[in-house]
């Protein structure tokens, strides 16, 4: 808070609109690289469509591989947006202001990318529609609405459409600023997108109300999405290690853990690339890190309970899964990396103020969290399916194929491409929110010390 920087509205506009109003070579370089990788992934997908799912590494009994692991990972990342934006907005946390849009936009692209994965996984993508829509009323053939596989697309698309609406509504005042500073075709596009915004009091009232309403309405959707993803696993009784009642909140809090970490990574990159040191300040990283300590510790509690359940029951099947996850190669190596990078390395670091306030260290530690969280999904999904149980003839093994690896890399490039493109055309830091924050800033003098303060409407 002591790091407040005094800026006029004109300066805020100038700084935050710079990426939108100027052309920079590095934008084309990044877009070019990402587009190439996405095209390569597209090629890999085309090959998989022509040849069939045999080109994936999945085979009986491990029918879910890298693509489903990556699906769960991206759904998890998408939980950053609502966590940071909606909850912190409702809680009137002042430090949220520069981070909210980055989180929402990350949600939008991560979720869109996640939604592709089940389709990629099926091999015959056009048949995926059969899961979702009733296709033969005459013979009474319906998708099984009792299955979480059917709930999944509904939840994801509700969350995706809600998020897009959320991003758009909160973007309108900033689009109007862009409209007034552009010419030609872009001016026309921004004019349409600004919906006639003039910034009068009625429009602000509506915008504020819409923001609060959407924040409150999207919260249950946010929780439902990853809960339903968890039930894809948990309602099955045939796979050891999956049929756990804790899966829903465990998945949700794990998603928030990885999602908020990815926002930290993204903010650190934005600060570095656009030189926004005056906007994304160490104090914001500090607040995010404090939040992460709580979220990560809650997640760790669920992890211990979930893994402990295997030892609680003492059933051979459960113990075999836990052994595959933690005791035998490559599970043990992956588990050590996962638990170290996901919890034991970042959390002690984030207890130190110097680390919390260092964008560089926060960048690396948050990146580590997501390496760990990707591996967590792998550890939860694959060893259970390998069925290292008493009947040895059912044992399986999974190794990802190059096609799957390419698709996973492509998903990262796709999300990056989306984010870079968004940053080019829209302000990634909400200008009106930052300006509002400036208006609410105050100082209280206690003795000889000026304490940062804010107006708070109760």
């Amino acid at each position: 808070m002591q790091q407040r920087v005094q800026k006029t509205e004109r300066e805020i506009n100038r700084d935050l609109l710079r990426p939108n109003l100027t052309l920079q070579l590095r934008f084309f370089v990044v877009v070019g690289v990402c587009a190439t990788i996405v095209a390569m992934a597209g090629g890999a997908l085309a090959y998989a469509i022509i040849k069939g799912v045999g080109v994936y590494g999945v085979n009986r009994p491990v029918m879910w591989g890298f693509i489903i692991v990556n699906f769960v990972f991206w759904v998890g990342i998408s939980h950053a947006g609502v966590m940071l934006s909606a909850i912190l907005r409702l809680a009137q946390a002042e430090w949220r202001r520069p981070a909210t849009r980055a989180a929402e936009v990350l949600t939008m692209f991560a979720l869109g990318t996640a939604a592709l994965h089940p389709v990629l996984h099926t091999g015959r993508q056009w048949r995926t529609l059969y899961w979702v829509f009733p296709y033969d009323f005459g013979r009474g053939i319906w998708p099984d609405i009792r299955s979480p596989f059917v709930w999944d697309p509904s939840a994801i698309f509700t969350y995706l459409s809600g998020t897009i609406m959320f991003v758009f509504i909160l973007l309108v005042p900033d689009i109007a600023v862009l409209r007034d500073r552009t010419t030609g075709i872009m001016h026309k596009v921004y004019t349409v997108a600004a919906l006639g915004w003039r910034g009068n009091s009625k429009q602000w009232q509506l915008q504020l109300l819409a923001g609060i309403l959407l924040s409150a309405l999207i919260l249950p959707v946010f929780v439902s999405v990853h809960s339903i993803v968890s039930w894809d696993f948990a309602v099955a009784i045939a796979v050891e290690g999956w049929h756990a009642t804790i899966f829903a909140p465990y998945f949700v809090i794990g998603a928030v853990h990885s999602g908020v970490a990815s926002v930290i990574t993204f903010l650190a990159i934005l600060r570095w690339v656009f030189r926004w040191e005056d906007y994304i300040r160490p104090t914001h990283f500090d607040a995010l890190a404090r939040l992460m300590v709580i979220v990560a510790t809650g997640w760790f509690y669920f992890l211990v309970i979930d893994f402990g359940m295997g030892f609680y029951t003492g059933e051979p099947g459960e113990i075999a899964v836990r052994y595959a996850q933690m005791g035998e190669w490559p599970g043990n190596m992956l588990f050590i990396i996962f638990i170290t990078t996901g919890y034991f390395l970042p959390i002690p670091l984030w207890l130190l103020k110097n680390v919390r306030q260092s964008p560089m260290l926060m960048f690396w530690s948050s990146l580590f969290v997501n390496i760990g969280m990707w591996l967590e999904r792998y550890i939860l999904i694959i060893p259970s399916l390998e069925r290292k149980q008493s009947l040895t003839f059912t044992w399986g093994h999974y190794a990802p194929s190059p096609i799957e690896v390419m698709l996973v890399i492509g998903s990262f490039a796709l999300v990056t491409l989306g984010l870079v493109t968004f940053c080019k055309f829209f302000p990634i830091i909400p200008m009106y929110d930052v300006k509002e924050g400036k208006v609410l800033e105050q100082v209280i003098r206690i003795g000889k010390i000026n304490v940062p303060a804010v107006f708070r409407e109760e």
Partner: protein
Amino acid sequence: MTNGHGSHHVIEITEKPPLEVNNELFGWSSTLGSKYRLAIGITGILFLLGIVGFIMKVQQNGFSDYVPWAYLTAAFGFVMLFAMSAPMLAIVPRLARGHWGRPISRIAELWALIGILLLIVMIPLLLALPEADGRNTFWFVDKYREGWPPGAPHVWLALLMVGLVVNGIALLWTAAIPDFAAIRDKSISSGKSAKLYGKLALGWRGTKRQWRSLRASHGVLGALYFATMVWSQTMINYDFSQSLIPGMRDSIFPAWYVISGLQSGVGLVLVTAYIARKFGNLQDYIHVNQFWSASKILLALSLLWAYFWWSGFIVYWYGKTETEKNIIDLFWFGAYKPMFILNMLLNFFIPLIFLMWNRVRKSDWGPAFVGFIVILGSLVNCIRIFTAAFSLPDRAIGHQLHTVPESIMKPDLPDVLMVSGIISGAILLYLIAIRYIPIISAWEIREGMLYQTVRYLHKLPLKVIGKPD
């Protein structure tokens, strides 16, 4: 004082000279009149009757079988849920620098003292609790390593509880040190009382170093208390409920139980704050803002309570193994169905229906009423889950639940006396504590006054709150 600042927009803020704050809050207990004495009398009698009930129970049943101790376990679990979770409402706002928590932090922390009573009540329960052998348990006894760790679960549960209680009392004590020092230095204490407060104040002089240590201790003890509280509730849930049900493997059950505890802890603080405000004339310190802020947490916890329950239920519903079907019958759709419905009403639907309205949240009565409802719900909850677990016939054999009792376990006279006795004992202990420890943390109020003021934004008076680093 409620600061209207000449507008319809009411801003509640305490504006008093620091000395007046000290005088009012330190002398507050001496203003407690006949109602206080009546409350002490009633709870004291009920507590004594509870002891009588306990003696009757020991004579009737002894400790060889744990089934007769179901209701005492439920009462223990209930009091532990609300009393030991209540201090979280002091810890969380303090760590999050929420000024709204200042007037209710001591109200919340004082409940940690009830841990002393719980430690005593836990002794017979541990004596009756069967060995871990042959049951599912988190302890490794007879499963992987014979007899390791030694004394599990009894010794380790007791140690966990002792850790929680010591931590809670340390939290209360350290947070009250500046107040003890102020009482020591005031004329209202003399002789023995001055000596006592002098000892409790641990030589506090208010130096910079002492303040730094105090703040550090808030962080460390608060975090430690949270962790210990969560694990104690988790292990109580496992050892006194889940592990007594053959084949039950419900990983969300303890987490849901912890949420239930946090929910009733917040409810308890709201009820206590309401009583202190209304009947203790503390309106100048405990404002509607405290109810408003805490009620939002209560609403969130009520939603979480339902979400956690649903997350567990749906997996059991889909699993439909024999044990899962029987557990569904045991807890939800069998003999305990009416109690489960009551639970859903008290812990979820009523809090949701009331607290979704800002007008209700922004009152003192609304959150306090919901808090009371939630506490009632927790009592029903504890009776349901502990008596259901204790009522199973084939408790220590095999890992499948084959039969479910057709009726709920009914309490006998000693059970009723013990349940009312332990609840009354908790209230009695709290009432005695507020006689000697200020119910509102005077130093936190004084500090809070420095960080809050009223200024105009354009023509609108608004509260300005300081956010120190």
